[in-house]
């Protein structure tokens, strides 16, 4: 039971980071990415390789993962600067699909379909540590950072760009730089979550970085409430307890739990958008921006 709870808590912390960072670009900058799992994956592979080849130091793994995911986020940022929302969603959809192919094919880096196995237990400066405290600390840090950035001038800049990009530009704001930074920050955060995930499960493969996971992250943000601090975290807890709740349904075969879960998520997303677009938390004005 303790092990179960500790595992759940670690998952919540890791996906909390993912939801919080996705919320940052989605809720404040109005950049809709369905490729967040790609950067989660990049971080996971990077962290795993660091642990396998060098040392399983959790901080080092996180830093390298953040650097790689943040750096490669330019793949996402570049189209975001060129086109408006609709087309950006398409580009991120394409990126997500191609990334899954890449993850399955680049065997030397990712281990292919089989993934990377036998990732050693994490240490911190040579001392063995559990992932849970580190993940909780990382979550706290990232929540703090997103809250500070969102409330400060950077958050104002992003919201201004979301509401009226041309006006923001006419006031001297370098829109391209702001968007690139926001995407870089969010993707670096996803990378950290990936490294923690790799060290937590000691095994990673492409299954965890598919579009289903991008959808899951998006659902966490949307169901919780975009553009709020705590909404994504609440969404994370809700959606991560969903499989456990479904397991209590006796008539449901274990193999179909995943599909049923996806159906519930999809239904929740659609119904929320029709009846309560702001999500569970959050004032109704948000999410209704005409971009």
């Amino acid at each position, binding site marked *: 039971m303790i092990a179960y709870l500790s595992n759940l808590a670690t998952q919540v912390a890791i996906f909390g980071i993912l939801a919080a960072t996705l919320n940052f670009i*989605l809720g404040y900058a*109005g950049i*809709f990415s*369905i490729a967040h799992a790609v950067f989660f994956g990049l971080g996971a592979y990077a962290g795993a390789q660091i642990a396998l080849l060098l040392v399983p130091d959790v901080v080092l793994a996180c830093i390298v993962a953040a650097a790689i995911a943040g750096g490669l986020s330019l793949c996402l940022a*570049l*189209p975001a600067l*060129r*086109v*408006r*929302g*609709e*087309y950006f*969603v*398409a*580009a991120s*959809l*394409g*990126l997500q*699909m*191609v990334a899954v*192919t890449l993850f*399955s*094919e680049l065997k030397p880096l990712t281990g292919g379909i089989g993934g990377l196995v036998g990732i050693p237990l994490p240490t911190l400066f040579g001392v063995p540590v559990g992932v849970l405290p580190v993940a909780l600390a990382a979550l706290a840090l990232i929540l703090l950072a997103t809250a500070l950035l969102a409330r400060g001038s950077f958050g104002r800049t992003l919201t201004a760009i979301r509401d009226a990009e041309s006006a923001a530009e006419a006031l001297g704001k370098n829109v391209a730089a702001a968007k690139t930074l926001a995407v870089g920050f969010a993707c670096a955060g996803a990378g950290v979550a990936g490294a923690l995930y790799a060290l937590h499960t000691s095994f990673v493969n492409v299954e965890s970085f598919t*579009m289903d996971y991008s*959808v899951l992250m*998006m659902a966490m943000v*949307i169901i919780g409430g*975009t553009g709020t601090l705590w909404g994504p975290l609440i969404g994370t807890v809700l959606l991560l307890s969903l499989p456990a709740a479904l397991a209590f349904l006796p008539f449901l075969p274990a193999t*179909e739990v995943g*599909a*049923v879960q*996806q*159906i519930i*998520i*999809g*239904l*929740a*997303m*659609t*119904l*929320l*958008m*029709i009846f309560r*677009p702001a999500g569970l938390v959050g004032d109704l004005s948000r*999410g*209704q*921006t*005409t*971009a």
Partner: protein
Amino acid sequence: MLFLQLLINGLQTGAIYALTAAGFALIFGATRIFHFAHGTAFTLAGYAFLFAWRADWPGWAGVLVAVAAATLFGMAMERFVYRPIQRHEGSFFTVFVAAFGVGIVVQNLIGLLAGRGLATVDTSLSFGTEVLPEIFVAPILWIAIGTAAVLFAALTVFLTRSHAGVALRALAQNPDLIRTYGLSANGLSVLAFAIGSALAAPAAIITAMTSGLNEAIGHQVMLISIAATIVGGIGSLRGAALAGLMLGVAESLALQFVDTQWAEAVSFLVLFAFILFRPSGIFGVAAAR
């Protein structure tokens, strides 16, 4: 010879892409709704055909069921999802998430009902005969190209000659004008969804008989449709259809150099290149910003 064979395959894929992309472009052009569940209409049509075939229904009944499934789905989306959202000033984001959610529900329902993974309809139509040394052509190729040609001709006549078709094209420019002419913008919007979604049905049927379906194929269809719409130039139906054809050929020809799993990567790279270097598309004039 491989080149010629791939070109022929590409034309077949291209015809499918052109039909799907034109449906998407028609809906987007007339209603300005970014119909992110267009791939779902495709999926539903394909599986409706598959179920009819498995139940040993005659071919024409299968086609009818498929077209009905896609059309009804499109109309239902307009009526029950997009219209309520637009009533409360729905942003692109709201529309997208709602449509995406529907897509996920359908994808997983189909996974539950029809099983996950590849599903094909095997008929004699998809068996190739050697027309030239090492060149195989199946009757389905002619069906694909013929269907696409006939449907595009019909669509052109409809959009330029008929009252409703002209109104449909005008809808994008000025919804108020439509109202003063005594036409209902809501009715036209439903019509756009019905026709646009119906166009996905033949494409889905041909796909089911050739490369096969899977429950997640909607995402790929969406990617192609959007890519074709961007490459062809936003707002240009003909551009979208042509770009769809080109993407199909490009994907197929690329197989000369890469393995099949990279085919969709080709479309993505084309899309990416266009977004970066020519966001207004080949035929478009308006910037995509």
